[in-house]
């Protein structure tokens, strides 16, 4: 204590004199902003969840209620009875899992070739693959529909997976190329010198090294395809392939506010949000790292 220089002691006195509010103003501002931010983000979910457990009659109160007065699960039962919910859920899962797996595998293969093997035109192929994501998917809908008709791929899971995995591919390739570029090439060269063939290098080295990146991309692609509306809306016209997003749109197609089944809509919405919410909670760090790689690259 006695060895403390005078200046610091003076400063210390000054600091102690500041009020608690002054000392913590930065923190308070941050937490205030956080509260506003969280409310801004989460309020719609609160509202949806609340509506889903409010009886249908209470939904049409004026002014609207902000608190579930008499919570009930009636809406869920009603919804599951009204739409072939389990079929749609199965379709959504097949669609999302299939698309994400196919797109990640195909993109990883292409990304390895683009990142590692220099061949004439590789840059052009890379630009072509990545830039093509700018082409609006709706712009190719009509020819795609006619082609699918002639291949009889409409109303099939394969057809939807083909379309969706192709849509996911540019972004996946972009991210995976930047991941692969990070892995030092010397490892592979050493393995090749030691007598491994290229297939061994790919399966025994690149796959384990890339596993985090691959699972990240699978998660991201799963979320994107789970949310996809346009392709299932157009290419799934029967119950055997319709996904939950289509069901949601069809339920809400009623024009009048009074007849629109908001009770069922909110229950279905909750079901649609749960899987992605779980994924986000489980893998937020990886997903954020994966997404921001595309921007910062």
């Amino acid at each position: 204590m006695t060895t403390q220089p005078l200046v610091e002691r003076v400063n210390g006195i000054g600091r102690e004199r500041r009020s608690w509010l002054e000392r913590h103003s930065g923190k308070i501002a941050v937490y205030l902003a956080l509260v506003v931010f969280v409310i801004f983000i989460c309020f719609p979910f609160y509202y949806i969840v609340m509506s889903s457990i409010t009886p249908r009659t209470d939904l049409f109160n004026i002014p609207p209620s902000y608190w579930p007065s008499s919570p009930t699960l009636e809406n869920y039962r009603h919804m599951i009875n009204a739409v072939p919910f389990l079929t749609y859920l199965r379709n959504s899962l097949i669609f999302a899992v299939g698309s994400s797996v196919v797109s990640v595998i195909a993109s990883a293969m292409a990304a390895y070739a683009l990142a590692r093997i220099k061949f004439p035109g590789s840059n052009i192929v890379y630009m072509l693959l990545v830039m093509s994501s700018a082409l609006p998917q709706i712009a190719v809908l009509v020819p795609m529909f006619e082609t699918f008709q002639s291949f009889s791929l409409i109303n099939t899971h394969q057809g939807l997976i083909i379309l969706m995995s192709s849509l996911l591919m540019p972004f996946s390739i972009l991210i995976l190329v930047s991941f692969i570029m990070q892995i030092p090439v010397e490892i592979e060269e050493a393995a090749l010198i030691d007598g491994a063939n290229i297939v061994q290098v790919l399966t025994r080295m690149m796959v384990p090294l890339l596993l985090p990146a691959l699972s990240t991309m699978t998660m991201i692609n799963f979320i994107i395809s789970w949310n996809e509306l346009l392709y299932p809306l157009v290419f799934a016209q029967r119950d055997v392939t319709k996904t939950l997003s289509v069901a949601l749109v069809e339920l809400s197609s009623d024009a009048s506010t009074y007849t629109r089944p908001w009770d069922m809509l909110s229950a279905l919405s909750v079901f649609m949000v749960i899987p992605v919410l779980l994924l986000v909670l489980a893998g937020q760090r990886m997903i954020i790292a994966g997404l921001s790689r595309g921007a910062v690259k």
Partner: protein
Amino acid sequence: MFDWFDTSVLTLFSTVVITRFWLVAALAALIPAWWARRKNFSAGLVYAIAAGGAIAASEIVHSLIPGATQTFERGETPSAAYTIWTDPSFRADFGLVLILAVLALLVMKGIARLRQDETSDVVSRWRTSAVGSAVVLALPLVAWGWAVGKLLFQASYGDIVLPLIGFAALMVVGGVVTVRLIGWQRNLGLLVLSGVVIALQVWFNSTRGPASMFESNGSVPFYMPLIPIILGALSAPLLVTRWRKQQIVALGWQVGALAWTTAAVGWLARFLGFYDYQNSFAFDLGTVLNAPIRVLTALSAYYYDLVPRELADDVNAANAGKWESTLAVLAGALVLLWVMWRAAALPARSKPRTLADTLERVRHPQFSLSQRRYVLAFSLILPALALRTFTTFYPFLQTVALSVQKYNPAFPPRQYIALRNFEKLSTDLVVRESLEFTILFVFISTFFQVVLGLAIAHLLNANFSLRGFARTVSLIPWAVPMVVAAIGFRWMFDDQFGMIPDLLRRLFSYQGTWLVDPEHARMAVTFVNVWKSTPFAALLLLAGLQGISEDLYEAAKVDGANWIDSLRFITVPMLMPIIVTISMFLLVWQLAAFDLPFAMTGGGPGFSTTVLAQKIYLEINSLNYSYAAAVSIALVIVVTVIGGLGLVALRRSEVSA
């Protein structure tokens, strides 16, 4: 209004298609040569087989082409495709073209053998060269024979005997003189000779009307091919005794080239003159060279079928005399000759490849290292590329094609209507409104997303204990289905039962009717979009923020900068490339956004919140496929322009950063 488009397309067509024909022919000529070289077969045999195959293929194509075998009712006009494919003289010409191609290729092969034949003695060299020259010269001879055969029953020879003798004499004298010259002088001499012949012929024809069935005014007579034949007949013995092999080859080539040049010039003369194919029986190499044009016409008949007939006829008539077409034919013929020459001149493999050898190589491929790399790269990329091609690149081309047609599956005939879809589009008020809204929506959304995103990124970058939680929360709006957000907000914006109007009424006593009033509906949709993507933008910006060194801020603080200064002079300049990237990404991505307005407002009230993508969807739903394609093209153009500007901005920001 867009007739100019068809006119220019047809004009281009006549030139481009002809050029393309020759290029394809040149490429196709490579295949037999390559195969013969691989197998150590006689190239000539392969060429013959290939030509036979081509003739057979033409028959098959003919039977397959729908327009060529159509049946039509009385009074119905047959399509251009039908007319041309069923015309016997056209098919004769087609066969002629193929035979000439075979002959030309045989010549190439003969000359190639001549070139390789370094060790053989003089006699065998003579034989080879004689065969080569003879085949070169047989080209026009066959054409001539063909013509005579055609004319035999229709002509009276009296009118042409005199000029024939006169020209033949001229040929003999000129040929003898010319072949005695050496090097460039000989070339020049041959050219001058042929020029003189042509000039004389044109003059001869112009002094009188088309006197016989053999001529039309300005045309070149059928005995024109005799020029190179006589030249060759004169030169063949001379060649063997006087000159060395290289010179023989050179002369053979010059003669052959001259034959074709003369014929082409003759063809040009006819083309510039008042030439009516149907009524003229004059037949010469000009006609021969005209045959490819007719083949091409047949191939392009589909285009003509698409174009309104009056227009096509006019343009055809106008194009008939175009010198560009002639140039294209000449250039194409030269390219073809060059390719065939080089292909046939390739040295044969030293070791013949047997079937067992091939199988062995298939079983135990021994690629070089670089070949293996390419094979690997190709096979790795192939699935992705194939998928993208199948679902994006190729359908996009189809969309482009669809946008100039009239196609509605409910009203079947699919018609070519040039740019009329775009004409309609430019006057379509819904398209205009939705274009305005799309651009407004996208730019305002992106602006708020980036600005608010930057603020949120600062919050997420601050040092506090719930930071991980905050980052998770900010990922949620991105992860939530757009449909869910849209429908949820639709309910929340509802005038009577919604929460947001209620809150606004209570807190600010604001009485807006949100989804009923167009302006408010637009604001609501934009708001939801900002809500959905701002945290996502914030996360991307956060990654950039984390890349900025803390020292910079410390240094700025020491220099007395406040937070506005450090934002302005450190954060924004350092983040500029990322900001531009994100903005571009958001702009392009949201331009194609479809599900938000679709699920939230359905484009209403009226069309006030209809984005272009949704307009396309509406048109598809009402089965106006071709109009939807035209709107799609407009959308792609907007995306391209904005994306292109974004790329320019990105390059700038990267250079300055």
